[in-house]
């Protein structure tokens, strides 16, 4: 089946996740071979997903770790979990 560009766009996310059905995948691939616009849309989307997944996009504020562990430390003082096995798990 020959797909129009706008139908290919509907499959970009599935294409990137590798979740398209074999038949749809084949149609999309055929289209991409000759359509530079859809290829550029796909490439740019993939590129943007790689960039946004990079941990450098969001930086930890200075001292974040120290403040976090200090707060945890305070929480841990005098904290204890219930001894294991002291409470029977209920089935229902």
């Amino acid at each position, binding site marked *: 089946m020959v797909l129009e560009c706008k139908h290919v766009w509907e499959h970009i*996310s599935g294409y990137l996740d590798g979740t398209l059905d074999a038949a749809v995948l084949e149609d999309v691939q055929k289209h991409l071979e000759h359509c530079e616009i859809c290829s550029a*849309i796909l490439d740019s989307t993939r590129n*943007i997903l790689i960039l946004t997944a990079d941990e*450098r*996009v969001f930086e*930890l504020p200075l001292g974040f770790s120290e403040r976090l562990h200090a707060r945890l430390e305070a929480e841990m003082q005098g*904290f204890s979990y219930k001894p*294991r096995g002291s409470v029977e798990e209920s089935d229902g």
Partner: protein
Amino acid sequence: MDREAMTATSENRNEAQMIASILAGNTHEFHDLIQPYERSVYSMALSMLQNEADAEDAAQEAFLKAFRSLEKFRGEAKFSTWLISITLNEARSRLRRKKTAKTESLDELNEGGHVSPALLRDWREIPSEALERQEVRLMLQDAIGDLPLIYREVFVLRDMEDLSVNQSAEALGISVAAAKVRLHRARLMLQKRLAPQLKQVMPKRRWFPWF
């Protein structure tokens, strides 16, 4: 390289054993358990809340909740996935508290909308080194932050925190089909906004012009 080393460490260490030890009374080991996840929990909170102080507080609260309720962790999911769900719920409850009727109706409105991508004739690969530029980092942060919440949530879980689509759907309490549709729209919305911006900021032969 650092990132790979850290991932390898978090995958190779025996988290189930660490958790058992913490529950047996060695509570201080919780510091080590969470160390590889500090950045991802904070990034997630910041993406959701759009404010550094709120994000730090939410991230701390998520870690405290994970510590207090560690007994409830069943080990069916990975610890990191469980932690991400706790962070999601913490961020969501904060958003609910300060959410205005306006943003809510906007999100609803966008649910049915159709998203078209930005049309390009070619795409020149933007390398990850571009993230050294604050301008580029801010561009990405703003684009993620401006996604309507229902799209931002699923995008953050799937594409930033690397959960599967099924895990994302489960964490959000929506169907897998709905998660896929929202994810698709989120990705196209980002492409539509970011592709022209990134092209503009990275013109041909003008890479890092000050070098």
